[in-house]
């Protein structure tokens, strides 16, 4: 866990180099201004030190050109910081399409993780090197935050709402993760370890012990029938409700004319608050499932709906190994 550079933690994801270069840029700008201003203060302090008790300074009232200069230069530098920072952030908030999706539920004070094939972990997260990984984050109680310093990523885990975060591990190893949003008594111990493995090892690990752990997709499928979703949502689209095949990841047109991207948060909202966003061409018939599903139920349903794609998400580790593109 020791880092090579003294002040930088391990660099173990695609975001680490970008964040570190951004950091370096800001440090350079800051050092420049700090040194310039400190130097000016020190020089003036000694050079213009009061020589006699009654001496007064030269009455200079200001200089318009200087004022403009020191408004414009910081403004330009600010824009540079903003633009660069924005680029990294937008990249981070916008996960690529073909990700390995892992479900993470935070609760006081532990993390429950579910791999795509259903394998569960607690306070541990195993991921393959080189693959784009997306974490779908949910909370059962208060706000938490999933933070992996070596990956330079974190995201709040907010109850009643899905957040997602993604990264591509670039270096196999063992990295600590933390809960970084204060969540009560044991906030400081609500952490664990991320294990980044070679893809083949990861596949082996995944298939290692599936015993008993239900696959979220199959669980979701079962729920889909149990909760009578399937009575309205027919796969051929002839029902009273839209077919859910291929909905995930696409763009949905709503009755009020706007469009939304069908991501995890949208699916969650469609289930819990079905009348908030009505799909164009359909009646607001769908009941709300607020208060009737646990976080894990919702996650399974989401996983199932996501699996209704042209190519289903592999239930075993087999297809997972392909190194991520992008």
């Amino acid at each position: 866990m020791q880092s090579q550079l003294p002040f930088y933690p391990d660099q173990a994801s695609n975001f680490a180099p970008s964040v570190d270069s951004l950091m370096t840029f800001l440090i350079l700008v800051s050092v420049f201004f700090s040194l310039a201003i400190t130097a000016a203060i020190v020089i003036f302090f000694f050079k213009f030190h009061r020589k006699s008790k009654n001496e007064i300074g030269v009455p200079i009232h200001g200089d318009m050109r200087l004022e403009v200069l020191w408004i414009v230069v910081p403004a330009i530098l600010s824009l540079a910081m903003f633009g660069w920072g924005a680029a990294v952030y937008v990249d981070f908030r916008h996960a690529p399409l073909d990700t390995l999706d892992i479900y993470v539920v935070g609760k006081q004070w532990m993390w429950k993780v579910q791999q795509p094939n259903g394998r569960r972990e607690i306070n541990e997260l195993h991921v393959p090197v080189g693959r784009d990984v997306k974490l779908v984050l949910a909370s059962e109680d208060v706000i938490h935050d999933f933070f992996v310093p070596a990956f330079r990523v974190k995201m709040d885990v907010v109850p009643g709402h899905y957040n997602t975060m993604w990264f591509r591990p670039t270096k196999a190893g063992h990295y600590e993760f933390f809960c970084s949003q204060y969540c009560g008594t044991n906030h400081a111990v609500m952490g664990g370890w991320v294990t980044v493995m070679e893809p083949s090892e990861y596949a082996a690990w995944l298939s290692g012990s599936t015993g008993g752990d239900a696959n979220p997709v199959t669980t979701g499928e079962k729920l889909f029938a149990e909760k009578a979703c399937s009575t309205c949502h027919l796969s051929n689209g002839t029902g009273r409700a839209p077919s859910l095949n291929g909905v995930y990841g696409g763009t949905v047109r709503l009755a009020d004319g706007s469009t939304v991207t069908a991501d995890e948060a949208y699916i969650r909202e469609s289930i819990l608050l079905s009348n908030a966003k009505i799909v164009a061409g359909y009646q607001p018939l769908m009941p709300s499932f607020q208060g009737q599903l646990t976080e894990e139920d919702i996650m399974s349903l989401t996983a199932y709906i996501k699996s209704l794609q042209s190519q289903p998400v592999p239930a075993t580790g087999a297809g997972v190994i392909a190194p991520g593109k992008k």
Partner: protein
Amino acid sequence: MHRTGELSGQFQTLEQQKESATLGMWLFLSTEILFFGGLFLTYTINRHTYADVFSYSSRTIKLSWGAINTVVLIGSSLTMAMSVWSAEVGKKKLVTFFLIATLVLGGVFLGIKGIEYHDKFVEHHVPGLGFDMYYCTKNPGACNLRPEDLQKERVELDELTKKMGGETAVNANSQLFFSLYFGMTGLHALHMIIGAGLLLWLIKQSMAGRFTTQYNTPVENVGLYWHFVDIVWIYLFPLLYLIDRH
């Protein structure tokens, strides 16, 4: 204009004193805008999220009471404005008369509000006090609803329940509506009560003939406050009563 009245020590002139008092009042009202603003924001977002439940819950409040109260309150604003005018032109008796009229109208408003609160209490629509949107439909005898209203409520509530997927969701979300309803109207009523206190104080002074063409700042400032409270209601009325009456 030449002013009279008591000059407090920190001021140089009476004009300065009056200017300060008026400026202070306006600044205070701008604070109040933001104070209510937080509630309005909370309301807006929840109303958007839970549109169906909010409009259903809103329909369980009686429109007539709200409309009457709007008229009463705007009326009281008129009498308040008239008392300011009376003070400005030096009609001492009229000042007292209009102040009392304002107080009475304010009292009527609060009285009606009390009736409305009482109804909600009976119907178990008060959050935290055995809140249950289904209370009336389940205990028809307990609520003083007309049979046809009850019937309508049954139908609408059934539909809503289906839509929301169960009674729990309906109760949770309409409890949000009523929390905001009581929060907003309660805070407004509190302002009215404070206003009524101020009016009493003015009436006492007015009866002693203190307000003249040269000295009327207190009437004016309480007037500003009273009108502000009226404005809050002007927004509360459509937001809480008129969501979805069609």
